[in-house]
C-alpha cells in the first residue's frame, strides 16, 4: 500500500465478505484446536479410567496402541501445522483481495 493510499477501515469493517471469511477462518481454527485438545487431553484420561477394560480388549496390541498414540501426536502436530500453512495461505489471498478493493487512492477522490 502506498503512503498516499488510505485503507478505508470503516468500509472494511462493515464488508460482509470480509466478516464471512474471518468467521470461516475462526471456525476452522476453533474446530481443529478443540478436536486436537480432545485428542491430546481427553483420550489419555479415558484410557486411564478404563485402563483395565481396554487392556483386556486389546491384549497384545496394547503396547502398539500406546506407542502409536504417542507417535500420532507427533505426526498430528506436523500434519496440522502443514495443513494450517496451506489453509492460511488461501485465506491470506482471499482477504488481501478484499483489502485491495477497499484501498482508496486519495488522488482519485
Amino acid at each position, binding site marked *: 500500500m502506498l503512503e498516499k493510499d488510505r485503507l478505508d477501515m470503516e468500509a472494511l*469493517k462493515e464488508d460482509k465478505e470480509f466478516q464471512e471469511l*474471518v468467521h470461516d477462518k475462526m471456525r476452522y481454527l476453533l474446530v481443529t484446536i478443540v478436536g486436537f485438545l480432545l485428542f491430546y487431553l481427553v483420550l489419555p484420561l479415558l484410557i486411564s479410567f478404563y485402563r483395565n477394560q481396554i487392556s483386556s480388549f486389546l491384549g497384545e496390541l496394547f*503396547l502398539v496402541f500406546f506407542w502409536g498414540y504417542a507417535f500420532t501426536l*507427533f505426526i498430528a502436530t506436523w500434519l496440522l501445522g502443514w495443513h494450517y500453512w496451506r489453509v492460511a495461505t488461501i485465506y491470506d489471498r482471499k482477504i*488481501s483481495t478484499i483489502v485491495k478493493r477497499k484501498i482508496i487512492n486519495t488522488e482519485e477522490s
Partner: protein
Amino acid sequence: MNLTYFVFFLAIVVGTLIITHWAAGRSNTTHQFYVASGNLTGFQNGMAIAGDYISSASFLGIAGLIAFHGYDGFIYATGFLVSYVILLFLIAEPVRNLGTYTLGDVVAERFPGNGMRLAVAISAIIISLLYMIPQLVASGLLIHLLLGVDYAAAVWIIGILMTLYVVWGGMFATSWVQIIKTVLLMSGTILLILILFSRVNWDIGILLDQTVKNSPLGEKFFFPGNLFDSVIESFSLMLALVLGTAGLPHILIRMFTVKDVKDTRLSVLTASWIIGLFYLMTLLLGIGAIGFVGWEELVTVDPSGNLSALVLAEFLGGDFLVAFVTAVAFATIIAVVTGLVFAATSTFSHDIYFHIIKKRKADEQEQLRVARITAIMMGCLSILLSLGMKESNVAFLVSFMFATAASTIMPLLILTFYWKRFNKVGALTGLATGFIAVFFLYVLGPQVLGIISLYNPGIIAIPLGFFSAIVGAFCAKRDNQGTSFEELKVKIHTSIGGRQ
C-alpha cells in the same frame, strides 16, 4: 579440571563472543536491538525459536526421564511439542500483527493505557525471571560437576556471559547464539545416536532387548504408568504444557523478529519440526542410556537421572565425546537464559521505561542506553535469585512456570484476540487471579505446606485464570475505549493498520 572439557567450554564461549561482536555492529538502532530489524528468515527464526525453547532441562532431563521411566517420559516430551499447534493456530499471527517489540504493545492495541501495559509488563517480567531460575541452577550444577568449579562461581560465569550477549549484541546476538545452539544440539544428538547404533550393529532390536533386561521395570518399561501414578497430576501437567508455550514471553517476542507475518508462520512451523525431531531423538537417547549403559551405572552417577545422556556419551566415546556433549549442553543453557534475559530486558525498557515513565519521549540513543542498563540489572537479579535456589527441583520449576504462563498470559491473549465482550477489568482480574492462584497452590502444595498433594497447579489455576477473566469482564460495563473489536479483527487477520 579436565583439559578436554575446558577446551570445548572455551570454544563455545569464544565462539559466542565472536558472534556477539559481529552482532554488536548491527545493534545501533532500537529496531535492530529489539527485533534484529526483522532480518531473520522464517527458517532461521524457526531455528532460533527451537534454540530458545529446548532447555537443557529437556535435553538432559527428558532423556533421563525416559531412561528411568520409559513411556511416560516420552509423553512428557510430547507435551512440549503439541503446544506448538496452539501457538501456531491461535496466538502467533495475532501477536505479530498487533505488536511491535513486546507483549505490552500487543495488548495495548486493544486496551491502550499505561495501567494495562504495566500489568502485562510485570507479568511478563515475573514469568521470565522465574523461568530463569531453574535454567541457571541446572547450568550451575552442570558446570560444577564437569569443570569442578564452585556452584556459585559457575552461576556467576553463566550469568555474566548471558548479560554480555544481550547488552552488547541485542536481539541479533541472542538469535544467532540460539541458532548455532540448535545446529550444535541437533548435530550432536544425531552423532550420538549414530554412534549408539553402530555399537549395536544397527539393530534396534538388540537395543530394545537390552533395555528390558537392564531396566528395573523390565517389561513394564515400555508401558505407560511408570511416572504418572495420579491421573489428576498427569492431567494437570499435560494441560500446563500444551497451553503454556503460548504464554511464554521469550517465545512470543520471537514472533517479531522476521520480515512479515508469513515468515512468523513459517518460523513457528519450522520450530515445531525441529523440536519434534529433537524429542524423537531424545527417545532414542533415553532408551540408549538404559539399554546400553545399564541401570546401575546411571543411578550411581546421578540418582535423579539428569545426567543419563552424558553417561551414555561417556560409554560411547569416552572423554572427548562427553566433553562435546557437555559443550552442547552448555550452549543450550546459554541460549535459553540469554533469551530470557532479553525478554525481561525488552519488556522493562520498552514497556515500562519508554512508554510509561518517559511517555514515549525518549530518543533512540537513550532507549538503547536504558535497554542495556536494564539487561545488566536483570542479569544480576537472576543470578542472585538462582544463587539461593541451589537445592530446587529443576523439572518441577519448569513445569510450574508453564502452568503459570498458561494461567495468566495465555488466557489474556486468547480472550483479547477472540472475545468481543472482553475488557480491561476482565484482563486485569484474569492476570491477578492467575498469579495468586498459582502462588497459593505452590504454598499449599507439597513443596511448602503439603496440604494439597498437587505438584502442578495447572488443572486448577488454568481454568481459574480463564474463568476469573470472563467473570471480571461481565462485571464491568462494556469497554468502548481503544480499538473496537471489529477494527481489531481487521488488524489481526490482515497485516495492516496495527504496527506502530
